[in-house]
């Protein structure tokens, strides 16, 4: 069963379509990327999933049903516009936000302690948020998102404003959650984060879905059939290669589409050439995005 099923959701603000007929599904235990430039409609889509705003049309089902109060208790949401109470302590903030998810009392406090320990911030539990650094505050917000042990976790630009150390910590935490079988939606405008973490993704531009599917499948679809090669010398002729481009330190070989990269490698090795680098070129998600947007125009 899919954790999220969204079909043909549309939302307009003052006549402008923020989200235009978007459909997607998120499977159990996967990290699902939602990518696109700023203002593409990611946050609006997420707010509709969270039942904070209602779609003009379309259907959303989460954890097998239309969103109701019990469903909300099983979702953890880290919004893009986020913050915490500045005047109350870390523990108070965490337990209050968990109580709003119907997770309270001793179990809530125990889990808060455990999670704070995991991120090495237990010593700050009685400090007010305003006494903590911005990065620490962000980690606390993340803990607030997952404190009630949700099955579905929605993270909107979770890495924004984090330093490299905390970024790494957060990535680890996300991968741990995936390991526990949680489903995670990761919304970001940073394509490289999707490449690094996500199994499948939805690419949105101007409210419309432009790409949707598994990362590996889409990457292979956009492979431009070339090879980066770094070696001591180039043979006069390689069967299956129809052209080459010199990049200085390395050459890019363009294949004819019938020959596989491994056949080329075999030919090189058989020719007695010492190969330092042999890489099947796959475009980055960034390049794919630019290509798709250009084609769409």
């Amino acid at each position, binding site marked *: 069963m899919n954790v999220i099923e969204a079909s043909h959701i549309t939302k307009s603000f003052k006549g402008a379509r923020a989200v235009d007929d978007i459909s997607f599904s998120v499977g159990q235990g996967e990290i699902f990327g939602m990518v696109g430039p700023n203002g593409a409609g990611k946050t609006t889509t997420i707010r509709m999933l969270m039942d904070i705003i209602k779609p003009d049309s379309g259907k959303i089902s989460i954890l097998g049903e239309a969103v109701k109060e019990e469903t909300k*208790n099983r979702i953890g949401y*880290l*919004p893009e*516009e986020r913050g915490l109470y500045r005047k109350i302590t870390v523990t108070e903030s965490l337990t209050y936000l968990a109580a*709003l998810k119907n997770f309270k009392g001793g179990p809530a406090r125990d889990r808060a302690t455990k999670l704070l320990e995991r991120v090495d911030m237990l010593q700050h539990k009685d400090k007010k948020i305003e006494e903590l650094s911005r990065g620490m505050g962000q980690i606390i917000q993340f803990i*607030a998102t997952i404190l009630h042990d949700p099955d579905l976790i929605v993270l909107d630009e979770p890495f924004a404003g984090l330093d490299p150390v905390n970024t790494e910590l957060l990535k680890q935490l996300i991968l741990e959650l995936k390991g526990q079988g949680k489903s995670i939606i990761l919304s970001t405008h940073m394509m490289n984060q999707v490449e690094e973490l996500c199994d499948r993704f939805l690419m949105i531009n101007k409210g419309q879905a432009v790409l949707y599917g598994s990362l590996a499948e889409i990457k292979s679809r956009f492979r431009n059939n070339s090879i980066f090669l770094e070696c001591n010398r180039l043979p006069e002729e390689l069967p299956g290669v129809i052209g080459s481009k010199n990049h200085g330190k390395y050459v890019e070989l363009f294949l004819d589409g019938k020959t596989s990269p491994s056949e080329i490698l075999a030919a090189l090795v058989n020719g007695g050439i010492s190969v330092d680098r042999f890489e099947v070129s796959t475009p980055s998600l960034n390049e794919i995005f630019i290509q798709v947007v250009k084609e769409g125009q």
Partner: protein
Amino acid sequence: MKKTLTILKHEFKQTLKRKSFIIMTLAVPLLLVLGYGIYQGVQHWYQPGEPEEIKIGYVDEAGGFDQYTSQLGITFIPYPSEEEAKDALLAKEVEEYFVIPTDYLSSGFITRYTLERERKVPAETWQGIEGFLLSNLLAGEVSSPEILDRAKTPMLMTSFQLDESGEIAPSQDEFTRYFLPIIFALLFVFALFFSSGFLLQSVTEEKENRVIEIILSSVSSRQLLAGKVLGLGAAGLLQIAVWLTAIRVFAEVASLNIPALSDFSISSSLLIWAVVYFILGYLLFAALYAGIGSLGSTAREGQSWSGIIVMPAILPMVLMSFIINNPESGLSTALTLFPLTAPITAMMRLPSDAVSAWEIAASLLILAGSVVLTMWAAAKVFRVFLLMYGKRPALREIVRYVREA
């Protein structure tokens, strides 16, 4: 419902922890104790012990003023000449002296000399000298000492107001008529504006902190509004309860020592009306404030908007002396019926018994209706604007959203 309760508890607890709430709540009992302390201190300082025997000298040039030289704790000492009287005054043998001139009977003039700096003649001295003169004047004419006494104090008056049926209407002292409405209205205004002000603050803080979206992913905007309104309302009621208890206890204790407070009482029916009006009034202002709080991006913006509501609400305070003096006027009735001014005006008029039952019923009905309507609109505004930041929406936009949402 459960989550509304969680929000209610949280808001209640957070408000009780606010410094401004604690200070305001304790201020009234502290002021009472302080005022009582000052009163006691002043009493003690003014009456160090038994009043001393006062000696007043006099020079009798008119003749015949030689009897009754002891009056109300004052001893009158005759001196043959003004010089000797003055010497006695400077030697502190007497506190003061006066001269009864030869033409006293026809003119009535006497002259008094004292070393004290005073604004006017002390009442005791005035009465003492008056009694002394009167007694001596009538000494030859009246034989009965009773008539003499009555002539000195011709009446001790008690007056009553009769109602239409000829029964004696319950007496209303100054305190019940003037001070009670003022104290009530003031406390009421404080509690009302403080708790709805806290509500405004709590909404705008969550918006400014950007916690609001996290909360809205757990609860609906309706649950959030209900939890906040009820939580802060409970805190406001607690504050009023503390104040009224303090006043009652204080009145009990203080009336033992301050005679003016001995017949002080707040009737139970008045208290019940106060609670009813407070709850309805609070709900109305809370809904308005919550709606306003959700419009601005920052707490400061919310505050500046709230002025629009405060203006009509404090109108009864501005007109306080008029309302208290003319509780039956048309303006007073109108202000009791208009929902924004109703709670405070009613608090000023109710102690005077000038409000008829239909007026209370109509005013409560209009107020309750306004509460329902405002809550409904506030919930809509709340839902639409809580997540909007940036430009402040125009009134037309708000109205459109309320209709469409």
